[in-house]
């Protein structure tokens, strides 16, 4: 029978199916942990007297609750320091590989895993973080789990799961100038809504996704959870293999050849069927921005805030717009912005930084805007410095910080003040997400960079046409990116 990519990888990881129900004992290849969602799991297995079943399949990093300044100094905030120290202590006690603060491999867990080659096609990967869907870009089943499940994987390397329904989202065609991976996924989420893929595992297919670099594919898969999907994946291809080859944890030598042979079997068979399918035309996608308090509330940057809302949703919709200080039918063009945040597991990789640097070179941010860029990892930071991106950013008035999740979720001191508007390359515009009372507008790094320079929302399509003929979108495969590592 014809199989989907999900079917193939799922079947390869079923230890056993529980008779009479829809649940499988499902094997996990790679378990990534961080300081926020792991301490209670360590407590639980210790409390039950259980050993770690496969500790060599766990890799840890500190990212959510770390400062982005002076990482060489002890963390000032006592609770954060305690939480990060707890991770260090737990990893030492259980002999788990940890890339903590100061380690050359430290970074946001979903940036760190792929760049080290820990993420590979055909794998099952979990982490106590909903954006684990990022790793699906390599053709892996990757998804976020709760802390009870973190403990289950620690104790058994398995989870009890029912197989999700399957959804395919196909985008065909070439995107317009200025349209990036971020715009494609914001567009898709705006069409499906914030719960539109709940219960499903998504496969992204079609030429628009094929044309993306691995980093662009990660941006897409990263946001799968923002429409409720359990995860998102893209079948591995030459782009995937080229990205992985030579990375520290990628198979080497003969093992590499065997791996590529196996990975090449990981695609959806031609006549396989999905529980749900969506088709979009890449030409319909414009640079996007969100106007509300969930990622489904997005629109083309030059459109007006929709007024045609179903009666049952009007109350929640109005609550959301009221929080943002916007009106239905209003255009965001010309709206003054106080903060620009470029970072997060969605958009903090070297291509994102290069794109920002390319645009801001020789320009200056608007005086009233605070623009911060937080690289996704120590390796991204190092690469940015080697390429001179740090200098370009500094000259443009952007502040390059040290790696971490930062203002995406504002667990550390990087917060947007109440009432202020922030154009952010992160993944969530929930109320208070970037700090109590903060107002977030999600967008691509390109839109964020332009906003920082202009100090307000502008119609970037017009801007690109006027300013230069050069293609600034990053959906075309980047000229062979220098090896990151």
């Amino acid at each position, binding site marked *: 029978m014809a199989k989907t990519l999900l079917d193939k990888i799922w079947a*390869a990881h079923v*230890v*056993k199916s529980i008779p009479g*129900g829809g*649940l499988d*004992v499902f*094997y996990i*290849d*790679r378990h990534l942990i961080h300081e*926020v*969602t792991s*301490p*209670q799991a360590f*407590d639980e297995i210790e409390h*039950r007297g*259980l050993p770690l*079943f496969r500790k060599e399949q766990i890799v840890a990093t500190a990212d*959510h*609750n770390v400062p982005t300044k002076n990482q060489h100094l002890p963390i000032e905030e006592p*609770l954060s320091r*305690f*939480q990060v120290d707890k991770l260090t202590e737990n990893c030492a006690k259980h002999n788990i590989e940890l890339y903590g603060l100061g380690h050359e491999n430290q970074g946001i867990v979903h940036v760190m895993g792929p760049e080290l080659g820990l993420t*590979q096609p*055909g*794998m099952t990967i979990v982490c*106590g*973080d*909903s954006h684990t869907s990022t790793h699906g870009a390599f053709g892996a089943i990757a998804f*976020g*789990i*709760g*802390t*009870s*499940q973190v403990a*289950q994987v620690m*104790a*058994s390397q*398995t*989870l*009890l799961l*029912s197989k*999700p329904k399957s959804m395919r989202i196909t985008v065909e065609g070439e995107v317009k100038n200025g349209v990036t991976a971020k715009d494609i996924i914001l567009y898709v989420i705006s069409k499906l809504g914030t*719960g539109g893929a*709940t*219960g499903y595992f998504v496969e992204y297919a079609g030429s628009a996704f094929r044309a993306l670099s691995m980093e662009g594919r990660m941006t897409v898969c990263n946001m799968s*959870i923002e429409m*409720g999907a359990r995860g998102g994946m893209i079948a591995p291809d030459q782009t995937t293999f080229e990205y992985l080859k030579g990375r520290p944890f990628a198979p080497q030598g003969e093992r590499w050849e065997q791996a590529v042979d196996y990975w090449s079997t990981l695609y959806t068979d031609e006549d396989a069927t999905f529980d749900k399918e969506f088709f979009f035309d890449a030409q319909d996608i414009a640079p996007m921005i969100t106007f509300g308090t969930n990622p489904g509330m997005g629109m083309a940057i030059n459109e007006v805030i929709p007024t045609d809302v179903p009666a*049952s*949703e009007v*109350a*929640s919709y109005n609550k959301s717009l009221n929080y943002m200080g916007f009106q239905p039918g209003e255009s965001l063009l010309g709206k003054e912005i106080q903060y620009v945040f470029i970072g997060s597991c969605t958009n903090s990789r070297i291509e994102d930084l290069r794109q920002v640097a390319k645009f801001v070179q020789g320009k200056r941010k608007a005086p009233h805007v605070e623009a911060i860029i937080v690289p996704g990892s120590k390796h991204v930071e190092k690469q940015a410095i080697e390429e001179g991106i740090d200098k370009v950013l500094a000259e443009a008035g952007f502040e390059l910080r040290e790696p971490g999740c930062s203002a995406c*979720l*504002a*667990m550390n001191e990087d917060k947007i003040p*109440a009432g202020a508007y922030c154009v952010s390359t992160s993944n*969530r515009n*929930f109320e*208070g*997400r970037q700090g109590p*009372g903060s107002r977030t507008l999600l967008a691509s790094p390109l839109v964020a960079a332009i906003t920082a320079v202009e100090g307000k929302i502008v119609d970037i399509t017009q801007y690109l046409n006027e300013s230069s003929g050069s293609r600034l979108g990053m959906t075309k495969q980047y000229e062979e990116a220098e090896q990151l590592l």
Partner: protein
Amino acid sequence: MEKFEVLQSTAVPLPIENIDTDQIIPARFLKATSREGFGENLFRDWRFDNAGQPKADFVMNTGRYSGQILVAGKNFGCGSSREHAAWAIYDAGFKVVISSFFADIFKGNALNNGLLPLQVSDEVLARLLGQIEEDPQTTLVVDLVKQELQVPAWEEKIPFEIDAYKKECLINGYDDIDYLVNQKDAIEQYEKSRPWAY
């Protein structure tokens, strides 16, 4: 995990859609390394002002509603996977959340903590919210054994779905971890038999 069979309680209505886990428990309260105490910051920024004073108009502060059942708008628990959201709701005294739709990760987290996510249709949810708002003393009966929701003023009982295994776990207070650890032999066998291993 505490056992759950039947619960009889009044309910607290929260008729807002897409309540994400950042609203349930904001990230800045996730610094604790134990599971306890999150209830005091449940719905923190809706419930308290910047000075930490209760906001008079929030449903948990009006004094009109109380109980161990939270009735919320559709797509409850979307966003972050933080299990702290389920801990916070449970710690604040709720044993059941009723909605017309739950986000996947939240649903799993709730079930792993003895908190029952009870899904009803949009129509039943709207009626239920109306009923509670009209009469805050409305006492609901959630019968997990029979998989039924009973509303005294209503003639019909509302059946609800739950995975048979998860139902057994809730009724007996079992965790998945107990089951999985007992599968060790099968898991080791699987590891040896894999055609491709990482």
